[in-house]
């Protein structure tokens, strides 16, 4: 596979992503929703400010047992582990299957009816606030 990072670093990323985001209940592990594929390239293209730290962290973990390497990186270079985690999380949560599983439709449109009566006026939710009356201190004198 080719792309914005080489195959070895990509494999390292996928292995570590599965440690950071494992399967859990109904939720899939990171690798099963292709976090190391096209989403990774898109994220690193859009956020090239992350690239240097991302690669630094992966290079430190390449060829090592993933969980131990990730835990060690969190101690030795916490910024790099956080960056790798951010990239993995972003790829994970942009996946349509994951979004569906957690009930997130994205920042979708939810058109409103501005003329619909407000529930808080109809059911009395706001009434106690109205009934208590003013809570401000008035101006003590008028300007001259």
């Amino acid at each position, binding site marked *: 596979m080719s792309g914005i990072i080489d195959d070895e670093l990509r494999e390292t990323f996928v292995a570590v992503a599965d440690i950071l*985001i494992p399967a*859990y209940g109904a939720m899939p592990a990171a690798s099963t929703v292709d976090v190391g594929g096209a989403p990774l390239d898109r994220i690193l293209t859009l956020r090239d400010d992350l690239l240097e730290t991302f690669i630094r962290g992966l290079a430190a973990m390449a060829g090592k047992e993933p969980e131990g390497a990730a835990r060690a990186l969190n101690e030795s270079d916490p910024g790099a582990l*956080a960056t790798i985690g*951010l990239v993995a999380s972003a790829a994970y949560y942009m996946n349509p299957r994951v979004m569906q599983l957690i009930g997130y439709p994205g920042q979708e449109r*939810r058109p409103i009816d501005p003329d619909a009566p407000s529930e808080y006026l109809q059911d009395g939710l*706001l009434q*106690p606030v109205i009934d208590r*009356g*003013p809570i401000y201190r008035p101006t003590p*004198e008028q300007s001259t």
Partner: protein
Amino acid sequence: MVSVNKGSKVAEVLIVGAGPSGLVAAKHLTQSGFDVVCLEQGERVDHGSYWGDKPEFELMIQKRWHPNPNVRDLESDYPVNTSESDVPILMYNAVGGTSIVYGAHWQRFMPSDFRVQTLDGVADDWPFTYEDLAPYYDEMEAEIGVSGLGGDPALPAGKGPPLPALPIGRMGRKAAEGMNKLGWHWWPAPNSIASRSFEGRNPCALRGTCRNGCVEGAKATFDVTHLPAALKHGLRLVAGARVREILVNDQGLATGAVYIDRNGRERRQLARAVIVCCNGVGTPRLLLNSKSSLFPDGLANSSGLVGRNLMLHPYSTVVGHFDDWLESWLGPAGQPIQSMQFYETDTSRGFVRGAKWHVLPGGGPLGGPPAPGRPFDEAWGPAFHQNRDRIFGRSFEWGIMAEDLPEEANRVVLDPELADSDGIPAAKIIYDYSENTKRLSEFHLARAKEAMEAAGATSVTVRGLMTDRSEHNTGASLRATGHLMGTCKMGNDPRTSVVNQWGRSHDVPNLFVYDGSVFVTSAGFNPTGTICAVALRSVKHLIADRRNMKVAA
């Protein structure tokens, strides 16, 4: 070599900065027949470039659309040294200014805000009252198309917002139920977000992306609300024009400005009067950079107060987590409801003044960037999923906007080393929380925690005042506020203020400041509504008084 702007004649008025106050001034001046040039260091924003309708939204707001210029690091931004500040800053440099990324909480100050010395014995009174400003609040709300519900008992009776309130949603309702249990004030919040079609803007669709670019075209940004009318009436807008200094003549009158265009050329725009609208950091920076033999300490600075009394609205939050599914990524964001229950002074609490509270949505699943160094087993592995299940869709915050009292030690100065990409000395902020702010925040956090628990929160996360200055230039400060106010205070006494009640410099009679720099106190409210009302009051006075204004020949 400095060249005069090609084809430029001497403008009647030069406005520096095309943010909210600058474009309010531009619209009203041009409509009254003034010949106006506006110089803006940023560019026009392509609203189609926002990410709110794309899956990458949460990723992009941590960098490109972050409200902190030090995080965005765009060419059009200038760096601000915040290494000696407790609070990071919020601004956006473009046509429309910070309204591009503001939260659109369109607030009025309360009557006591203008009389803090008389009522509470602190700081100074403003040179006018709430009642003096109320007609300008009314007019700005009509120009902007504010959505809200009239009759809030935290304010004197008045017209109320012109558009219906936005829905308060499940989050607002949940929060309101908690406040009712405690007998505390809450009210559907005012937002400068259209609830129905309004003068070319679309109605809000609750995407919740307000602070990082409204893709619906519902939020009021001043490149949309005020620029078109100004251009129609002849405004000459020069974008990408970074002003280096205000020019003065031998008589001590402002004669224009020197700016650098995007080709790196120095140019000069001459004018008979100059209005500075560069915000509470950019304005003192420009005045301090405008040194001359007549004004060796910077322009309009005989009081020594240019840059002093910086107020930033220290911010803290209590996040409540609920069993109920609240769809808490939905807008407005914006604010569904607000509370001024603890706004007014009660000295038995151990501090003066107070804070506005507002409900903010919890956002999407990605949230802010993970905190580096968080214990592995708290952040990753099964905890990754457990945290999301507890928080996502089920959380919102009570944000606490503390009134920040002016202190001369809190200030904007010129950085001796840092400069922008054109070599103009950058601003440095020196700012420490006051003891009053710390006590205020502690009290309000405790009350907001009670409010969350009364609303049925199963757990709460308390985020007190930001204390880690190392986070200022990272996306970690995504929610931190740094409203910019007070650095060219207005007042009647030239010894203790920079401009008079109409924004005119005490020292330079044809130099004006209309942005949040002129605030005498900060109040505990988001400032844009008051910045614009004060700017409108000032520019209307200038227009009415045009024949008496002393101008450069």
